[in-house]
């Protein structure tokens, strides 16, 4: 209530002030600051602020109840037309403004699906009434242009539960300024950390952390970054005592210092060893590998391990599999052979450690047969210009351009012009043959056609290729526009290309991106540690986009080797990397891990015997296990991304699946072999712990496990099977810790 009263007073003051000023005359002031209430500068921001033009309401493509506005007011002509001209002019009624449908609906004097947006007589009501009464004028074209919207403060550190007011200032081309706080819309990126009221009063929540408040006024968006440090003092000197040799460490400590947080201890060798295997090559270490590493007393054994792991053959399958998630085509669209070709291309790229700029270039400019050059398959999978354009911008640039296909991007600068300019790079991609999916799929040739133009989705005019926020390239007629696109994408000056890959790889290794979602890089979605992201991207670029170098850089930092156990000074930290974040194995890794632990083989259709799940080239290969633990569904659009969250059916599957129980009790599996070996019960327990947890059991654990072993060695097979079952069903097995 207090908020709205304050709001009312603000509005009244503003109106009053305008009137008073108007009475005094405005000759010496810029024209737009006169009392004249005009559409673009006064009314459209209101429609945004009160949610009228939002996606669920009149902003959706077909409007609501016959009244459609452009989403978030990015098309003023359309909106003015809709309000003033459509519905036979009943929406605004200058002779008796109160009778206007616009006002009667917004105040719910007439039935309104959106309820009461504001009260009759309230400041926004009065503003609208004034505008209608004066003939619903547009903002004159020669009025000074809005150049910037500035929020003050743009960054602030505050205590838990502390409040402060945001002020929004509009700056115009004639040098004038205007306070537009009351006409601006505010939105918190994380309302648990900070909330913001309609009139810009920001309040921190009870917990420390960091977030951003998005401020919107007339197509301009800006953010205020809010930091809520952990209360209590830490000596600045303490931070200086942390090792800073590795650049990642120094940048993470800097951020923690800002938040008053302190890093966790370094993880134990066994934890680190298992984590490194799983993150670098997606498999568990063998008992012997664990024994050797734990016994090694060299200082640099962790760095050495990372170097060695990245040289192993499993690296390529594991990392190619991640990219296959992003690119794996729908077999019904491309045919099975093409699915295999693209998969083989990816695996080969990672086997050769193909530099990432070359990787992107070969995909984006791919030409030839879908049966010979796997990279071309992405064009068969996404045959429409607009589809491939959205997918390339999201994959390689972290820009979700797709929104801008139909309307201005709601949280970004991208307009429909940007979208179609970008998509036009693909306007000359030629397709020949291969038109009969799904059965054979057929062979398709992807080539650069001599002509081909893309029509703008709204205006229908032909669009010239234009990169994002960069001038159009000069293209000779014989030149493939895709070459120019690849050139611009991989140019050192491109701010997005290296960052989005660095962020993806960071997220894969650390369990959380610096930016989340990992492919949504924008000013309104700031990175949790921008200097760190800048460093990673710069270093990646400086090392010729060497993906293994990027992985090695991250994995040899101290930050990668921190324990997951929180302390009092970082317990609530979920994105500043003051500790390692636990994550469940992905489906393929878990299936391979179970098979490795038991030393059994999986049989997949369309795969040679002994293949691992990370080598699967199609999700058409049926596997109840992989389905249960979640693999992307290539039939879904967009393909479902991975999750590491657990579900009850997953737990049930581990406990009760007849298939798992069959493997557990095979004569050829490890439990049976151990039971019939001449090893002692204690040795068997140790071996089991090494296989499943990749560590030695503690004395206490060993004692408890030994208690289930019968006196007679002949009967011990059941005990060993039960022990394996028990450990496999615990979280310590399921998680990368």
């Amino acid at each position: 209530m207090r908020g709205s009263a304050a709001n009312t007073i603000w509005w009244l003051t503003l109106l009053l002030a305008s009137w008073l000023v108007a009475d005094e005359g405005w000759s010496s002031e810029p024209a737009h600051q006169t009392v004249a209430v005009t559409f673009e500068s006064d009314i459209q921001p209101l429609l945004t602020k009160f949610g009228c033009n939002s996606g669920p309401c009149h902003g959706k493509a077909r409007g609501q109840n016959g009244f459609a506005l452009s989403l978030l007011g990015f098309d003023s002509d359309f909106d003015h037309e809709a309000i003033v001209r459509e519905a036979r002019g009943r929406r605004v009624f200058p002779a008796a403004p109160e009778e206007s449908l616009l006002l009667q609906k917004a105040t719910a004097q007439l039935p309104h699906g959106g309820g009461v947006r504001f009260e009759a007589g309230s400041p926004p009501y009065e503003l609208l009434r004034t505008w209608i009464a004066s003939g619903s004028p547009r903002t004159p074209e020669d009025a000074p242009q809005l150049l910037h919207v500035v929020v003050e403060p743009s960054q602030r550190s505050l205590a838990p539960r502390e409040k402060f007011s945001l002020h929004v200032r509009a700056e115009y081309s004639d040098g004038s300024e205007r306070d537009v706080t009351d006409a601006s819309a505010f939105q918190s990126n994380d309302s648990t950390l900070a909330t913001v009221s309609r009139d810009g009063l920001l309040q921190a929540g009870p917990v420390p952390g960091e977030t951003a408040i998005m401020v919107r006024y007339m197509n301009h968006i800006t953010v205020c970054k809010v930091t809520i440090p952990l209360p209590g003092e830490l000596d600045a000197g303490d931070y200086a005592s942390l090792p800073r040799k590795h650049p990642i460490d120094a940048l993470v400590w800097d951020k923690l210092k800002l938040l008053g947080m302190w890093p966790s201890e370094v993880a134990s060798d066994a934890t680190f060893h298992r984590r490194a295997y799983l993150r670098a090559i997606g498999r568990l270490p063998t008992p012997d590998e664990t024994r050797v590493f734990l016994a090694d007393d060299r200082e640099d054994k962790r760095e050495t391990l990372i170097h060695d792991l990245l040289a192993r053959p499993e690296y390529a399958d594991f990392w190619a599999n991640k990219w296959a998630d992003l690119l794996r085509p729908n077999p019904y669209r491309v045919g099975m052979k093409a699915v295999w070709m693209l998969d083989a291309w990816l695996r080969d790229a990672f086997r050769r450690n193909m530099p990432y700029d070359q990787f992107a270039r070969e995909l984006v400019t791919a030409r030839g047969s879908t049966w010979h050059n796997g990279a071309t398959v992405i064009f068969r999978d996404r045959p429409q210009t607009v589809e491939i354009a959205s997918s390339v911008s999201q994959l390689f640039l972290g820009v979700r351009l797709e929104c801008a296909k139909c309307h201005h991007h709601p949280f970004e600068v991208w307009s429909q012009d940007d979208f179609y300019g970008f998509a036009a790079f693909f306007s000359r991609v030629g397709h020949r043959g291969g038109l009969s999916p799904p059965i054979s799929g057929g062979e398709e040739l992807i080539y650069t056609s001599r002509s081909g133009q893309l029509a703008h989705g709204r205006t229908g005019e032909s669009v010239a290729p234009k990169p994002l926020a960069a001038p159009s390239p000069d293209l000779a007629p014989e030149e493939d526009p895709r070459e120019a696109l690849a050139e611009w994408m991989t140019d050192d000056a491109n701010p997005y290309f290296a960052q989005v890959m660095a962020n993806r790889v960071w997220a894969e290794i650390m369990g959380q991106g610096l930016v989340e979602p990992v492919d949504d890089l924008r000013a309104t979605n700031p990175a949790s540690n921008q200097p760190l992201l800048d460093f990673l991207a710069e270093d990646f670029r400086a090392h010729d986009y060497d993906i293994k170098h990027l992985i090695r850089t991250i994995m040899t930092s101290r930050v990668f080797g921190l324990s997951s156990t929180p302390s009092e000074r970082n317990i609530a930290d979920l994105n500043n990397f003051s500790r390692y974040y636990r994550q469940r194995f992905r489906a393929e890794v878990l299936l391979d891990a179970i098979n490795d632990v038991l030393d059994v083989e999986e049989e997949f259709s369309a795969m040679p015997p002994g293949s691992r799940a990370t080598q699967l080239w199609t999700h058409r290969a049926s596997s109840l296990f992989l389905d249960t633990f979640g693999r992307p569904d290539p039939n879904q659009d967009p393909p479902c991304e991975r999750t590491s969250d657990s579900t009850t059916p997953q737990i049930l599957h581990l406990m009760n699946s007849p298939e798992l129980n069959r493997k557990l009790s095979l004569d050829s599996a490890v439990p049976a072999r151990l039971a019939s070996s001449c090893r002692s019960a204690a040795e068997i327990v140790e071996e089991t712990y090494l296989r499943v947890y990749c560590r030695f059991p503690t004395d206490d654990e060993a004692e408890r496990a030994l208690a289930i072993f019968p006196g007679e060695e002949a009967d011990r097979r059941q005990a060993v099977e039960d022990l394996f079952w028990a450990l496999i069903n615990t979280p310590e097995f399921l998680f990368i810790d």
Partner: protein
Amino acid sequence: MAIHRNCQGIKRRDCLKLGLGALLGGGFVDALRLRATAGNNARANTSCILFWLDGGPSHFETFDPKPDAPSEIRGEFSPISTKVPGVIFSENMERLAALNDKFTVIRSVRHDQNNHGAGNHYMMTGAPTRIPVSCGAFVSFHPSMGSVVSAQRGAPDGLPPYFSLPSMTRSGGPNFLGARHAPFVVGDNPNKDDFRVRDVTIPSGLEDGRFLERRRLRQELDTFHRFQDRAAGDPVLGVDENFQQAVSLIHSPAAQRAFQIDREPDQIRDAYGRHGLGQRALLARRLVEAGVPFVTINDGGWDHHSEIFPKFRTQGRELESVVAALIEDLDTRGLLETTLVLVMGEFGRTPKISTLADRKTPGRDHWSNAMSILVAGCGTPGGQVVGATDRRGYSAVENVYAPENLVSSVYLKLGIDPDTILYNNSGRPTHLVSDPHPIAEIMG
């Protein structure tokens, strides 16, 4: 490669919020539970059994015969009168004809998606595909009815809320609602003596206490450190919660009874028919009794481009007797009031009988301009026919409805508001059903 932002339920960001919110009281797992049971109060006792006839069953050979049409349209079968005067069915729908005071036939749902991929999607989700897709496609652009019901309703005793027997339908997935709302698929054949519902029952050979011994051992050896402070957002707590749910399901007598189809008296099992389809329908009834709100029976082989007449004498008769047995059984048990039974496919069939170049015998081809749908229970009036097609069955002409209206009706009957806005993974608002008006005639 993005592991965290996902389609599978709770996002990491949500976990974060939940974790932080927990400082204010409540907790991560509590919040999960709260979510799982959200919406449970609305018509919590209603359920749906969907017979999905993949391929698209003919309306001529089922509930919309055209005896006055020329023979190339009329086909081989004669019409039969039904319990409701003036309503005729095709001759193979004999048992249902004697029972149509218990259900409604809709003859006027139509759409423009004339291939399997797109038709499946439209009828199963109430949303047309966003881009054109082909016949062979298995696509998902929008959550299916079953997944929506799973998300909005949940189920007791840790039971999965959405079952699909014996496989998932083409567009029966959860899309952005996430894997936890994917159907629980029971592939095994309940007509077999050794039938068990996978994973929810203790594997054979372990029932004699060995399973309990394993669980005891697991608990004793589970020394993994949990970060109990909810603010830490430890995902292991979620696994513990799932584990408890799994255990409660395994040991819930009510839930386990649902899976034990062999407890059913022989006469009931016989009534449903001793074959996969019949026993799946019976299993569906048992699941509904145990509180599962949505069960799909995915029955393939309805794409009768050829052999349409012999198939309807066998396959058609088998289906109708199963549906009749289910409706009768539900009615006898008083469950029909709370159980919606739907029988439909992605579209109807062409009026003109054709023999395609690569076929030897006549059939009918895809025809989305008309189809017949059987709706029973959950307040659906009996003895009713909604809408009509023209004299020759070419198009729905009276009280024409779209798939949106059908799907909205299903949601309303299950206590879910079809006029709901869902947010997909990119935060884009999406209507649960874009036209939330139900088919008034079946709303009772």
